[in-house]
Structure formats: C-alpha cells, structure tokens
C-alpha cells in the first residue's frame, strides 16, 4: 500500500483520458483512501447573516466571542499584537464608508459584530504567495497554518482587518488547563482568522458562534434558494461591509 498511489492514479487518469478509458479510470479513482465524512454539512457558498437588532449590549456579544475563542484556542494578548477571530466595534469603524453626522441616536454608537467576511472574491487569497490561504469549494476562505510563511501579505490585502498574526508563541497567553485539546493552537509566525468552523461543519455541526447566538446569527448556503439565509435576506433589509471594493462579502448585516 502506498499513499502516493492516489497521486499516481491522478496522473495515470489524466494520461489515459485521451484513450477514452474513462470507465476504467473511474473504477480506480474510487479506490482513494480519503473520504468526505457523511456527516459533513455541504454547501457551495456558505454565508452568515447577522441580525444586528438582537446584538446590542456587551452581554449579547460576549458568549459568541467566548464560544469561538475558547474552542479555537485564540489567545487574548493585551497589546496591539492581539489575535481576534470574532469581535465587535462601533458603527463608524465597522461601516466607515457610511459617513453620516446625523445618524439616529440608537445607531450612532451601536456595536456590530466583526469577523472574516469569507469574501466571494477574496483579496487575501489573490495575494498569498503559497496558497496557504485559499477558497474552498464551499466558499470558506481557509487558512493552512502548515504552509503559511508569515509574509503577512494577506493582512495588507484584507480590507476588513480580519486577519491576525502570531507575533509570538500564542501559548504564552493561553491557559494550558483551559485549552481545547481537540483543536490545535497556532505557532508563532503564522497568520490566522475565522475559518467558519470548518472542523465543526465536517462533523455536522453549525459554527460555534451561530450555536451560541440564540438565533442572532443565521448560517446557510447562499446558493440554495430554500436556505434560511436566503429566506431572511429576501424579507429584511441587509447591508455588507465596504461593498464598493468588489470583494463580495458573505457576511450580511440585518438592520
């Protein structure tokens, strides 16, 4: 048994394509030792809808952030070199283009949830020199921490400030007793961000923040007209961050 067999078969398959030997190739190719779990939640364009009317006080945001940061071993570093996967900030920082000196009081200083937008046209993926960050077939903008060389080009490329760099060993700021033993930490020198809980989707579970949000976050497939995200976007007014720069975020905010 050889694990490079799959690669060999890929090449072999390509080379016999011209001989119209497809049936035989199909039979071989199904022999690959790697399988997608039957529990995997599938989509072609994962998206998140944030119901901002349900997220107001710090008490509304905290459980979401805690849910994410605790299971993903995200440290809290009390400096400018902090790591954030999901957090919140005031309206003028989240939607800086929406300049309005006479904004209604209720919205003027309202806080909004922030996370990676999993853009349909992600600039971070375009600039990465090693494909360490890439777009999956289901639309998730993924990080391969094994491959990242830490050049931080993606951080310059991201127009949303969604990416964090491990300036130091994150374990210095993690409590070993509280680490989630089923998920890795990161090493110093790599970039990280929200991964839409790809590991939970593979297990048939929704992202941790969605689960903790009591309905404030809706997660689903934008390409499926019957999905809950499509339904709610059809009914209510929604906006996205910095729509003018063409990145097509897959995180929507219901106002």
């Amino acid at each position, binding site marked *: 048994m050889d694990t490079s067999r799959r690669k060999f078969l890929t090449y072999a398959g390509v080379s016999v394509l011209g001989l119209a030997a497809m049936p035989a190739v199909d039979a071989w190719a199904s022999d690959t030792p790697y399988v997608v779990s039957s529990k995997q939640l599938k989509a072609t364009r994962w998206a998140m809808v944030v119901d901002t009317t349900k997220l107001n006080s710090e008490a509304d945001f905290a459980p979401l952030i805690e849910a994410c940061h605790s299971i993903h071993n995200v440290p809290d570093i009390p*400096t*400018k*070199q*902090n*790591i*954030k996967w999901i957090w919140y*900030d005031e309206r*003028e*920082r*989240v939607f*800086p283009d929406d*300049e309005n000196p006479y904004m209604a009081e209720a919205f003027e200083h309202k806080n909004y949830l922030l996370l990676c937008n999993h853009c349909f046209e992600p*600039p971070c993926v*375009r*600039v*990465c*020199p*090693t*494909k*360490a960050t890439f777009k999956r077939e289901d639309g998730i903008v993924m990080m391969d921490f094994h*491959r*990242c*060389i*830490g*050049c*931080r*080009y993606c*951080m*310059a*490329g*991201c*127009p*949303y*400030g969604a990416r*964090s*760099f*491990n*300036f*130091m*060993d994150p374990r210095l700021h993690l409590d070993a007793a509280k680490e989630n033993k089923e998920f890795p930490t990161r*090493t*110093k*020198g*790599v*970039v990280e961000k929200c991964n839409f809980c790809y590991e939970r989707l593979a297990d048939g579970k929704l992202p941790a923040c969605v689960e903790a949000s009591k309905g404030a976050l809706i997660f689903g497939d934008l390409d499926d007209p019957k999905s809950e995200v499509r339904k709610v976007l059809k009914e209510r007014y929604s906006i996205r961050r*910095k729509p003018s*720069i*063409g*990145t097509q975020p897959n995180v929507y905010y219901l106002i």
Partner: protein
Amino acid sequence: MLETALKGSSRYWGWLVVLLGVIGVGAGMYLVQWNQGLTITGLSRDVSWGFYIAQFTYMVGVAAAAVMLVLPYYFHHYKAFKNMIILAEFQAIAAVTVCLGFIVVDLGQPQRLMNVLLHPTPNSILFWDMVVLNGYLFLNLVIGWVTLQSERKHVHPPKWVKPLVYTSIVWAVSIHTVTAFLYQGLPGRHYWLTAILAARFLSSAFCSGPAILLLVALLLEKLTDFRAGEEAKRSMAKIITYAMCVNVFFFLLEVFTGFYSNIPGHEHTIKFLFGFEHGNYVAVCMWIAAVLAIGSLALLIPPAWRDNAKVLPVALIALVVATWIDKGLGLLIGGFTPTPFETVTEYAPTVPELLISLAVYGTGALVLTILYKVALTVKKEVS
C-alpha cells in the same frame, strides 16, 4: 578575480571588520527574533508591515537604478559612463542582496521560505517579485562579472552578453514595477491604490539610486585612485535632477487628486503623514523630507551649483534622505494609516528592529565593498 579582494590596505580590512561587527550585532538580535518572533518589532495587528518591508522597497529602487547608466552606455554608446558602468551593476547586486535579506528577516516562518517555490502561485504578485528579483540578481552578476573579466584579459566581452544586457534594461524597470504592484493592487488601502504608484516608484528610484551611486563614486575618488570622469559625473547629476523633478511632480499629483476631489480616503493618509491629523514623529520626518526635497532641487537645478564639487554632495545627500523618508517610512506607515476601520494605530521601529535592519544593510555594504574592490583592482591592473 575574487582573489583580488584578498589583498588590501589596512583601511580596507578595517572597514570590513567594522561591517562584520555590525552584521554580528544584528545577527545576534535576529536570533532573539527567531526565538521570540516578530513581537520584538514595533509591528502590530493594524500596521503589519513596517521598517523591514519599507527598506526592501527602497532598495529595489536602488537596484533598478543601474539602468540609468546601463541604458545610455549600451543603447546610445555613451562612452563617458565607461568607468561607472561596472559600479552601477555591482551596486545593483548589493542592493538586491539587501532586498532579499529584508524579505527573509520579515518572514514569520523563514524556514518555510521555499514554499514559495514548492507551491508556485502566479496570482500572487509576491511570487513574481521573487522571480524578477532573483532574475535581476543573476543578470547583473553574469553581466558584471563577465565584462569585467573580459576587460582584465583585454578581450571584447563575449557576444552573448549583449542580449543579457538588453534584457537587464527591461528587467530593471520590471523589478520596481512589480514591487509597486505589490501595493497598488490592494483594495482598501487608500494611499497605495493609485495607478501612479509604479511611476512614483520608478521616478524615485531613478533619482535616489544614481544619487547613492554618485556619492559612493565621489567617496571612491577621495579614497582610491578611481576616477569616474568629469563628464560622467555631470551627466549623472543631470539624470538625477530630472528624475527628482518628476518624482516631486508625481507626488504633487497625488496631493492634487486627494485634496481637490475632497474624497476622505484620498486625503486622510496625506493629512496624517503631514501632521494635520493625529500628529506624531512621522509628520516631523515627512516635513523634513519635503524641505530636503525642495532644497535638493534648488541646489541641483542651477547648472553652476550642480557642477560645483562642494555643493553637489550636499544636494545628493539631501535628495537621498528625502526619498528615503518618503519611501522607507512614509509609504508603508501611510499605507496602513488609516486602518481598515478608519482609525490610526501608531508604529515606530524598535531598537532590535533597527539593529537587524542595520545588519542587513551591513551585508549589502560588505558585498558592495568586496565587489568594488575587485572592480577597482581590475581597472587599475588594466590601465
């Protein structure tokens, strides 16, 4: 030919020891960075590139500048640059060495550097920058070394060098264009997202690179019996003056577009850089740069001053400092200010960061010294 670098005066060896000392201190500091990570720098989540990448950018310009001499010499047979040409090519080699050094010290996972080759990604400009920089290094090494060797043997350089020379001319433009593309293709970074960035890069390169080269040549004339030639020096000063005029003009174009259009994104960075908003040390530096830039032009434009051996070095130093602040400080800090949240996060390089940078520059100086020693020894032998 390399053996000629092994025989030198005590001043030559003393200088090498000084450089090795600087490199040693920085290398020690780099070990600390290797162990602790980039946390020892002033970089942050919001300003994720800083002094290292800025120096890289500036030195790509210096490397590209060799074309300002190579082009007249080879395309237009401008023989006055005869003595300078090898210095220009060797300066390019040293400059690219510095560039590569700054890229490496900036990486979070330098041991994975080869991933760029293992997983080539043509949609990344950084991949192309790696290609053009290494290509340029190779071209200049081959061209410089082979022509010098031919000169030593009193023969014409082999015919195959010519196509390489012509390639290197186009290539020089490409290295700085690609470096500008690193920045100007990023959505959401107001200061960089401008079509004139590549043109600004080239104009700033074509004044600052030859200026450094001319300063070094003047120094060599003082220290050794190397002579650049009066006509060569005057021509270089002219090239530098024109390029600096264009450089300042291009910057003013940015200022016009930002302020006349009154679009906040375009204005914000320039206001920050010149201290109209959130003033800090960067504003002081930028004003110094502005004054020095205008001052250098005031000294360079009148021919009488430009050709004056006392005035010229002062003007050149002013020019180099001005362009260095603009590109080695303002460009990067300005690009990350404002942040994607339209806030300001301050950045200043730390002492370890500066020491490591000094070591990278020291390595470049070491390479330059050895190459120049070889070149000057050969020139002396031949004459």
